[in-house]
């Protein structure tokens, strides 16, 4: 699956709910003001003709209009400040889960801290969170400015090199919510999506525990093909950019592939993670995402099939 709820008006968490509520208040007030002005315009141009103009009286009406405008604006300002207060830091947040979101051209690296260095989890383009628990996201950019935006959970927060920042999100119901980079960041800004997967706490803990496991050693790989695939992987160009924990592939240029087969998407939320897509992605990612850092890797069909067999074990 690549798509999921992404509407600011269908909130799934407390922050987005506050924002959506305020948005509706503004929409209604603005619609009323617009109608009032248009009705005034219609009467002005279509109403009774009057040659005598009492300028002083009309000016009093103009000033009254300005006064009413000011009052409406003050009310909207109060509503704004009241809503903004307590968004960041999130009011009354406790038992906070921390995760780190790193913007890269053009994908999201997601890290969960661990007690020991080998307990740290690194994944890509998929942020798993437990339902009902506030999550503090540490936002860091490795290259240019990106902006983290998952409309169903919260508004945007920029990732500016040199200005690390934080944002709280929380999901009130299980589900998948789609986000997208919202600050123009170069050639593939359009295909820089992220999925937030909100799960029941037990399910989330199970997911996290699985993510902490390294990949199975070669001896445990089922099937000759997968074993040959691992050899191809480790002796080819893949380890120059990618990590598979438990092997000597440990580069951090590209997404960590230790559990790649368990992820929902490829190419930063833009392609469903199925065998056929993965095959095309490896052979020529540029055809699908021109400009991305993944180079074309032409392989004989048998090698490609072995490589895929190996990657599918990385669950």
């Amino acid at each position, binding site marked *: 699956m690549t798509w999921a709820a992404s509407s600011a008006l269908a909130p799934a968490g407390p922050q987005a709910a506050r924002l959506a509520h305020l948005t509706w208040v503004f929409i209604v007030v603005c619609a009323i003001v617009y109608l009032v002005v248009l009705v005034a315009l219609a009467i002005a141009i279509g109403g009774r003709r009057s040659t005598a103009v009492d300028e002083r009286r009309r000016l009093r009406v103009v000033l009254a209009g300005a006064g009413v405008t000011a009052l409406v604006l003050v009310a909207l300002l109060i509503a704004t*400040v009241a809503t903004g207060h307590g968004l960041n830091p999130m009011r009354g947040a406790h038992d906070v889960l921390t995760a780190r979101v790193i913007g890269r051209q053009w994908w999201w690296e997601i890290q969960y801290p661990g007690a020991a260095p080998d307990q740290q989890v690194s994944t890509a383009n998929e942020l798993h969170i437990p339902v009902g628990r506030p999550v503090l996201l540490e936002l860091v950019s490795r290259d240019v400015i990106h*902006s983290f935006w998952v409309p169903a959970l919260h508004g945007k927060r920029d990732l500016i090199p040199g200005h690390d920042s934080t944002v709280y999100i929380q999901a009130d119901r299980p589900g998948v919510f789609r986000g997208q980079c919202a600050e123009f960041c170069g050639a593939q800004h359009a295909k820089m999506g992220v999925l937030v997967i909100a799960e029941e706490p037990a399910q989330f803990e199970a997911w996290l525990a699985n993510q902490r496991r390294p990949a199975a050693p070669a001896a445990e790989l089922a099937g000759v093909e997968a074993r040959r695939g691992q050899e191809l992987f480790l002796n080819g160009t893949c380890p120059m950019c990618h990590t598979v924990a438990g092997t000597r592939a440990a580069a951090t240029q590209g997404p960590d592939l230790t559990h790649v087969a368990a992820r929902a998407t490829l190419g930063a939320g833009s392609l469903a993670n199925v065998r056929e897509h993965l095959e095309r992605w490896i052979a020529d990612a540029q055809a699908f995402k021109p*400009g991305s850092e993944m180079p074309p890797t032409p392989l004989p069909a048998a090698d490609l099939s072995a490589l895929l067999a190996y990657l599918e074990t990385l669950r």
Partner: protein
Amino acid sequence: MNEELAASWNPGRGLAAWLGEVRHTVIGIRFVVTAFAFFIAGGIEAAMMRLQLAHADSHLIGPDLYNRLFTTHGSTMMFLFAVPVMQGVGTYLVPLMLGARNLAFPRLSAYSYFTYLIGCLLLYAGFFLRAAPDAGWFAYTPLSGPAFAPGKRVDVWAQMITFTELSAMATAVNLVVTIFKHRAPGMTITRMPLFVWAFLVTSFMIIFAMPAVMIASSCLALDRLVGTQFFNHAEGGDHLLWQHLFWFFAHPEVYIIFLPALGMISAILPPFTRRKVIGYDLVVLATVTTGFVAFGVWVHHMFATGLPQLGESYFTASSLIITIPTGVQIFCWLATLWGAPIRFAPPLLFVLGFFVTFIVGGLTGVMLASVPIDLQVHDSMFVVAHLHYVLIGGSVFPLIGAIYYWFPKATGRLLSERLGKWSFWLLLVGFNVTFFPLHVLGLHGMPRRVYTYLPESGWSPLNGLATAGAAVIAASLIVTLVNIVASLRRGAVAGDDPWAADSLEWLTPSPPPPYNFAAIPVATSRAPLWESGGRLDFVSGLATNHREVLVTTLLEGAPDHRVPSAGPSIWPFLASLVTGVAFIVSMFRPWGLPLAIVLGIPVMFGWFWPRRLAARAPAVASREVAT
């Protein structure tokens, strides 16, 4: 006597005369025509983008071309169209409305035009050499910096900015001095047309806003060329600094484009409602207030960068406050329209179109001023909708109305009203069909500046609708273009004052003679053509055997002295060329600036070399200036 005047103001024939032209009517028309040419170019870019976005996963245009297209579209519309077209209209009309014979600094206006033209040519030369900028019209660092934007694309952008803003500053200074010192006798500052007030405030805003972006673009060019680190956080620079400098310019920029359009509305309403705009004082105060407050709202473009809440609240409040002066102007115009004997000619229709469309943009602006809402809709299609409602609704509608209104003055021919009405209704429908759906797309999570989107997103139908609307907009603009071409040849002859209007530009023939007014009129009220009972007093005593203009006092508009006005000169054109050499060479080599200084010194000597007054026959006895 008029023949002698015409001879004095006639530039002569030939290429040198064409390049040396310094009359404001000619320069103004050059500005407007060039700006509209680039408006068409920017429109074609927009149409290409809309075609690409018409449905999901389209393969018409790849990301690299798309990014060049949206950057060039934004840069063209802001820097090559919107500001120059307004300044061109001002250059053409302000002296006529003031009863003046030319701008205060005629040669500076020629320099301003050629410098602007070189900036235009630079951007489009880049476009056709595949070196068009691709980092957005805002060119945020570090994406636009040396590390992430190799090649010359961003340098083209940065130097284009410097050209066009230099040009804008030159015109602004020229307009301010003209408005302060060259008004017709008797036109006290409180009798100035509201249109002129709008241009006065706009010009001051340009003088204060443009330096910020010129410094920013120059620092960026230095970062890219000689390795300064203004915008490199690893070396103590700061990426937020770029954003502050850019938006300190770019928000006032919106009002620099918008206020002249409000001035046009204040000028168009009287002849079609048969009454003066109600609340002159309020409209003036509102214009001046907008000019000040516009400099205090820039941070609302940066809410997502994460400022402290107190700071954000301040900028929310200031962004809401700026609604009030605009609201006051709209109320004043409604009070003017109320019960008036309205004539629904195209200029007025476009003004009414302004009410219907701009107010939507103003209200979504109120939403964007609110930090929490902005966090959701910022950098989404919602903002694309908002800014086009503000810029097209707020500026282009009145501007096209202004074209229909002043075309007869500039050409002596009326535009067809029938085609004008067609163009208006097509634009009104096409515009709303194109841009209203984008509000919804933005709220449903569609970001800006994306070259494609996934089929599963469900965004295709509204995007398809928007693309269809764009075709209707194109049809509307083609109708107006056809109208202009046809009317230039066969339009009804306009006469001096086809609308029975109230301001001084309608006193002189259409098109105006090279000297504008055979005799400078004396203004005794805010609507001199309506309240004089058909009899205006005139100034006598200005020399006719050479270009001479009258200088009046700043507040009272009392005659003060006479000064010679600069005649045709090739030096402004040469100075623009030197400016071009300086900026274009320094995209590649640091010695561009020293080279320009070496070349520039002789040109400045040539420009300012004292000359004998080019008097023709023995001077007619100059009499006392009388009012």
